[in-house]
C-alpha cells in the first residue's frame, strides 16, 4: 500500500491546473516587472501618481510605486499575483471536500478504508503544497528578474514576502475548504474563500483612508500580510504566524465537522 493515497490523488491528478496557474503567475511577473525601469522609476510616473487622488493611490497601494520593492509589492504581490493565487487556492479549497461531496465522489471514497479526518488532512496538505509551489515559482521568477529589471529587492525581504503571500492565499483556500466541509457545498466554500479575500482587500483599502476607520485594518488579513510592505521592509513574522495558524485551525475545524455529520444526505 502506498503512503498518503488521498494526498497523491489530490496533488498529482490536478497537475494541469497547478501548471496553468503557475503559467498565469509567470505571465503576470513577466508583464509587470520588466516595465519597472520605464514606468515605476521614472519621474513622469511619479508626477502622474502625485496627480492622482491620494485616496486612490492609497487604495491601490501605489504610494510606494516609485521604488523597485514598492513597485513589486503593489503590482505583483498586492494585486495581480494576489488575485491569481487567491482564485487558485479558493477553487482548490472549495473542491477538496465540499465539491467532492456535491459531485457524489466523496461517498465512494469514504466507503473505503479511510478515516474522514485523514481525508481532510491529506487534501489540505495537497492544497498547502500546491500553494507553496506557486509561491515558490513567484519567488524564483522575481529573484531572476531582480537584476535585469533593476528592482533592487533584498533576498531576505523577498523570502519573507513570499511566506506572507502564500499564507494570505492559503487563508482564503482553507476558509473555502472549511466551509465546504461543514456544509457539503462547493458554492458555499467558494463564497467563504472569496469573502475572506475580497473583504480583506476592501477593509485594507478603506481602512487606510482615515483614522476613523483604521480599525478595519485590524480585521483585514490583507493588511496583516502587507501592511508594512514586506518586499521593501521585510516580513512581519507575527502576522505570518497568524495567517498560517488560522489556516491550520480552519483545517482542524473542517476535519471535526466532517467527522461528525452525514455525508451526501
Amino acid at each position: 500500500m502506498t503512503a498518503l493515497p488521498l494526498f497523491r490523488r489530490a496533488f498529482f491528478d490536478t497537475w494541469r491546473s497547478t501548471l496553468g496557474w503557475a503559467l498565469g503567475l509567470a505571465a503576470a511577473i513577466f508583464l509587470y516587472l520588466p516595465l519597472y525601469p520605464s514606468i515605476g522609476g521614472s519621474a513622469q510616473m511619479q508626477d502622474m501618481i502625485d496627480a492622482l487622488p491620494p485616496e486612490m493611490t492609497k487604495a491601490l497601494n501605489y504610494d510606494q510605486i516609485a521604488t523597485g520593492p514598492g513597485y513589486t509589492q503593489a503590482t505583483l504581490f498586492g494585486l495581480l499575483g494576489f488575485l491569481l493565487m487567491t482564485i487558485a487556492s479558493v477553487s482548490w479549497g472549495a473542491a477538496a471536500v465540499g465539491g467532492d461531496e456535491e459531485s457524489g465522489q466523496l461517498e465512494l471514497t469514504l466507503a473505503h478504508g479511510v478515516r474522514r479526518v485523514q481525508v481532510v488532512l491529506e487534501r489540505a496538505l495537497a492544497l498547502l503544497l500546491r500553494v507553496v509551489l506557486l509561491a515558490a515559482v513567484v519567488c524564483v521568477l522575481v529573484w531572476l528578474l531582480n537584476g535585469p529589471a533593476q528592482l533592487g529587492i533584498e533576498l531576505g525581504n523577498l523570502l519573507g514576502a513570499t511566506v506572507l503571500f502564500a499564507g494570505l492565499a492559503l487563508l482564503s483556500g482553507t476558509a473555502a475548504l472549511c466551509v465546504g466541509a461543514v456544509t457539503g457545498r462547493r458554492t458555499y466554500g467558494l463564497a467563504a474563500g472569496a469573502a475572506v479575500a475580497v473583504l480583506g482587500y476592501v477593509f485594507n483599502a478603506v481602512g487606510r483612508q482615515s483614522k476613523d476607520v483604521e480599525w478595519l485594518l485590524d480585521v483585514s488579513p490583507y493588511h496583516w500580510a502587507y501592511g508594512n510592505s514586506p518586499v521593501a521592509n521585510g516580513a512581519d513574522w507575527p502576522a505570518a504566524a497568524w495567517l498560517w495558524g488560522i489556516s491550520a485551525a480552519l483545517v482542524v475545524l473542517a476535519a471535526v465537522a466532517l467527522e461528525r455529520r452525514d455525508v451526501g444526505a
Partner: protein
Amino acid sequence: MAAAISAKSLTKEFGRREVLHGVDFEVEAGSVFGVIGPNGAGKTTTMRCLLDIIRPTSGTIRVLGTDPRAGGPELRRRIGYLPGELFLAGRVTGRTLLAHYEAISGPVPPGRVDQLAERLGLDLTRHIRKLSKGNKQKLGLVQAFMHQPELLVLDEPTSGLDPLVQQEFHAMVREAKHRGQTIFLSSHVLSEVQQTADTVAILRDGRIIAVESVSGLREGAVRRVRFTTSGIAAHDAVARLTGVPGVGHVEVLEADGTATLSATIGGDIQPLVRMLASLRLTDLVLEEPDLEEAVLTMYAAPQEEAR
C-alpha cells in the same frame, strides 16, 4: 457468525423528515440478499448506514459483527460498495482510478482487475470522462469486487448495463456467493433480484414490509398455463381443469374440434401435470411464474395487514 448484517429498529431522520421508520432485517453470511422497493423507499439510506456514510438516528447495526460507527477503515476494507448514483470524474484512465481505490481498500490479488474488466468488456486505458454511463457502472463494479471483500453492498448494480453485461454480473454474484462472500443488493424491480438472490426483502416508505425466500415466492407465485387439446369436448376439458387445485381464471376457445384452454395456477403444479397427461395435447405453454405480480398482489394490502 451467522449474520453478515443485522439491523434492528433502524430509524433515520433528515431534519424533520423521517426516511427510515424502524427497519429490521438480517442477512445470513454467505447468502445473496436483495432489497426491492420503489425509489425513495429508503434503500440507499439503509446502505449508507451500513458503511457509516450516514449515521442512523436510532437503532443498532452490526456489519460483519461490528458496529459500522466503530469499525472504521478496518471494517470498510472488508466491504465492497457500489453507490446508487455513481459519479466518477477526473482526467485519469480507468486503470489509474482503480489503482487509487486499490490503495484505500483491501488487498487486490494480482491480475484480478484485468480479469474483471475483461469479463465486463471494460477498456481500462480510456479516460473516465469519456466513458459512457454503462462503462462507468462497470468501473464501479470492478472497484467493488476487486478485493474480494467478505461483504458486497451494491445499490442498483445493474442500472445502465446492457442485458449481456447484466448476465455477466449475475454470474459474478453467483461466483462470489460460491466463494462464501455475502451480497446485499438493491433494485426497484424484483425480476432483477430474483435471478441471483436467495432472500428478498420488500422495503416501502422506510419499512421492511416483507422478507421472503425467493423459492418461497416461487412456490406461492401464480403461473399461466395454456394448452390445446383434441378429442375431448370443451366443457369436459374445462371440468377436468377446474378440478385441479389452485386453478383459476379459466378461459376456453373452441375451433375445429380442438379446444384451447388458458388458466392461472398457484401452488404445486404436480396435479396439473398429472391431469394434462391424461389429455391428447397439441400445444402446451407453462409460463415461468411472475414473482413481481406475486409480490404486488401479496402486498397491495395496507401495510398494517401486510405485517
